[in-house]
């Protein structure tokens, strides 16, 4: 399909609201991929390591074993018989992480038939054969969080994946990633329901709907808690309440079982959302888009809320009119944890460039810029102890770059996930060592 001439801005809105209709799925092609053996072991030598946690290490090495980083630094011994790959001074980073994507969800991003649909699970829509995953992989992206869209006040539950394109659905899910749920407020829910003359068509309506739903969830939770307590005591008269998937999901929000992500642009709305979270006793993990975070960065820092933002998108709608490219760094300097995300099947392919823009706009250091698409993005998704930096014990999700990664010129030469070579640009065809189309 052809993109309009205002492609990126249009895409933003499409992705936010209507899903990536412009990139609707081609018919699924049968695919197979044989992962390298999970015990594969090797040493990368003579690399410039940008670690995300320990700065830059020149002439560094990484020992990968059993899918994990076993050792790294300037003096890493390769055990006998272990293959050594000489990187010839090129750059290696941890795998890039996109903490806000709608790829591989076909047209199923928004269940926009009701503003409260917390029981929608993106895992049920996850099209693991979508080539968008391959293209992201080829850009060094090794993990992504796929979220519900922003048509609804309380949308669905995210799925976190590793970009092991070619494997089965189950094998692409990020093992042990915590559950995440997406809320949204502002223009998108206003427009979607307002245009149908339904509630909500204003921000007042937005939050009334949200508050009502959380109130019902609170009552539902109490009913179940009462029942469970009675049942525990052996009360034969205890009557099991009816299960309601929607309220069950919301009750889990109140129980703190989800990382809560909120699509939200305006400074005043961050504060309203935080007030709501206090009122109902849940915690907000991150505001997504968050283009006005710089206006209330102190308040966000105080609440320990991260932001997941764009480098320099602006003006595609009114609530993006006060966006400035200094947002990421200004917020970071106030202590807010900042990630840069794509929200786009296009931009996911150059997140490294987007992160590099924070070095120019506000003077992020190399490591700070890189963290925004590695460690901080991992934190947004709750997997920062597993991925997001070159550290011993972390998953060996690594990217070898053709050039300095925080520049316009870098291209991913090789990408490893869990220690397995998943993409190699020097190979013909798709550049995937074990992927073949058709059976």
């Amino acid at each position, binding site marked *: *399909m*052809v*993109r*309009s*001439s*205002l*492609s*990126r*801005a*249009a895409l933003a*809105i499409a992705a936010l609201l209507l899903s990536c209709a412009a*990139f609707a799925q*081609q018919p699924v*092609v049968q695919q197979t991929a044989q992962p390298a053996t999970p015990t594969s072991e090797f040493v990368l030598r003579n690399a410039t390591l940008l670690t995300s946690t320990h700065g830059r290490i020149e002439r560094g090495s990484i020992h990968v074993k059993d899918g994990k980083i076993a050792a790294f630094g300037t003096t890493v011994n390769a055990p006998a018989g272990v293959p050594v790959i000489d990187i010839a001074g090129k750059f290696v980073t941890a795998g890039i992480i996109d903490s806000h994507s709608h790829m591989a969800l076909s047209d199923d991003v928004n269940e926009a038939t009701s503003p409260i649909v917390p029981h929608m699970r993106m895992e049920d829509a996850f099209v693991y054969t979508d*080539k*968008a995953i*391959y*293209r992201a992989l*080829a*850009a060094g992206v090794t993990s992504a969080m796929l979220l519900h869209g922003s048509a609804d006040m309380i949308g669905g539950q995210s799925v976190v994946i590793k970009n092991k394109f070619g494997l089965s659905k189950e094998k692409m899910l990020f093992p042990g990633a915590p559950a995440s749920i997406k809320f949204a407020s502002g*223009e998108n829910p206003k427009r979607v329901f307002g245009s149908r003359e339904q509630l909500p068509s204003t921000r007042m309506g937005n939050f009334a709907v949200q508050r009502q739903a959380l109130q019902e969830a609170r009552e539902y939770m109490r009913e179940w808690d009462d029942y469970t307590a009675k049942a525990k005591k052996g009360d034969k008269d205890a009557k099991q309440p009816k299960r309601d998937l929607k309220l069950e999901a919301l009750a889990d929000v109140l129980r703190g079982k989800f990382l809560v992500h909120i699509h939200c642009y305006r400074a005043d709305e961050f504060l309203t959302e935080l007030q709501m979270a206090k009122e109902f006793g849940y915690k907000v993990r991150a505001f997504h888009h968050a283009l006005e975070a*710089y*206006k209330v960065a102190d308040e966000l820092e105080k609440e320990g809320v991260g932001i997941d933002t764009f480098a*320099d*998108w*602006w*003006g*595609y*709608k*009114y609530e*993006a*009119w*006060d*966006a*400035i*490219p*200094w947002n990421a760094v*200004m917020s970071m300097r106030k202590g807010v944890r900042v990630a840069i995300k794509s929200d786009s*099947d*296009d931009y996911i*392919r*150059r997140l490294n*460039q987007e992160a*590099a*823009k924070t*070095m*120019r706009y506000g003077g992020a250091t190399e490591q700070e810029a890189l963290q925004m698409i590695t460690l901080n993005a991992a934190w947004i998704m709750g997997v920062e102890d597993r991925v997001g930096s070159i550290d011993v014990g972390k998953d060996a999700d690594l990217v070898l770059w*053709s*050039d300095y990664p*925080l*520049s*316009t*010129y*870098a*291209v991913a030469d090789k990408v490893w996930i869990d220690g397995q070579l998943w993409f190699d640009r020097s190979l013909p*065809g*798709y*550049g995937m060592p074990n992927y073949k189309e058709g059976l």
Partner: protein
Amino acid sequence: MPDRSPVPPAPVVLKGGKLLTITHGVIPNGVLVMHGGKITAVGVAGSVNIPANARVIDVTGMTVYPGLIDSETHLGLIEIEADDATNDLIESSDNIMPHMHVYDAFHAESELIPVTRANGVTNAIVAPASRDTIPGQDLLIQLDGRSAPEMILTRDIAMPLNFTGEQRRNASFEKAKYPQTRMGVVAQLRQAFLDTQEYSRKWHEYEKKSATDKEKDGPPKRDLKLEALAPYLEGTRPIVLAAHEPSDVETIVALANEFKLRFVLNHVTRSQKLMDRIAELKVPVIVGPIYELPKDDQRYDAVYRLPAELHKRGVKIAFASYEAHNSRNLPYAAGYAVAFGLPYDEALKAVTLNAAEIWGVDKQLGSLDAGKTANIVVASGDPLDVKTDVKRVFIQGREIPLDNRQTHLRDQYSR
């Protein structure tokens, strides 16, 4: 609009910078003199006479290059995309709208313009959106001026002709209007071209007759639509042919040749198989949308490599952002094409001199040469890299304030 000083009466000299001249290489320690809105001298330090009354700016350590030219934008046609009240992108009541002139809508006070020029884009083609086959006529602007007339360099500089499938009026089968198919789009176009030829013939006839004083019937009725098309059918101005798919490129080029149109190509993002054929046409190509996603059966870099593939075959290329808000990121598309094989010098030319040549303004724009308009950028480094910070921008020799809506917000909330 920020306050703007008039063209400085005294010469301005940029001294000590690395000059990317485009036409005669890189001068590591150069001197550039501007006076009366023009570049008056360029050369190695020591070889250029610095006028006694000049304002001399030391730009040691900086990179100096000609203002960048974005070969397709929507600047001045849109402010907030989702707000229709601020949106004059396209008149979509009909497919053939050559009498729509971007200059009638161009909003000189757009907040987007100071944001864009702060990254070194000094000139741009402004085009309507692409929903129509012929959506109107383009404008060439410079990104500074008190009013639209001051910013407009050339009215009706070219006419887009879009053939990408998007122009079909086929939203649903029930609501479809003519042209619902590509066949319809071409038939409609061909009819418009024939009507134009007929219209021009009538007018020529009338003019010939009236010159000999024998005309009795009076002039033919004027038709603004056909009148607008006439110069393009006479080949006096270029048409910008946009197509993606190989079949669309073939179809629309055949039609253009049938009517002997003068044209440049635009997009061609899906036409990897047509590279040799495109090269044979000996026309320039606007290659901006390298971010277009490849088809699912293509390798990830199939579109990224297009600028390099075209250049390899001798095709002159220019980049466009096809954007309004993100026009400032134009140079990064050129830089990313370098990562996929385009020689660096060509990438730089594609956002400067090549664009100037394609739009017929290479005597004024596109390189650091004496006699050209003094549209000059001073930056911390490589213009095509995302990390580079633009420090100074001159348009017509005036130093342009780099503040804008975004820096104001930054400063307001940094206090």
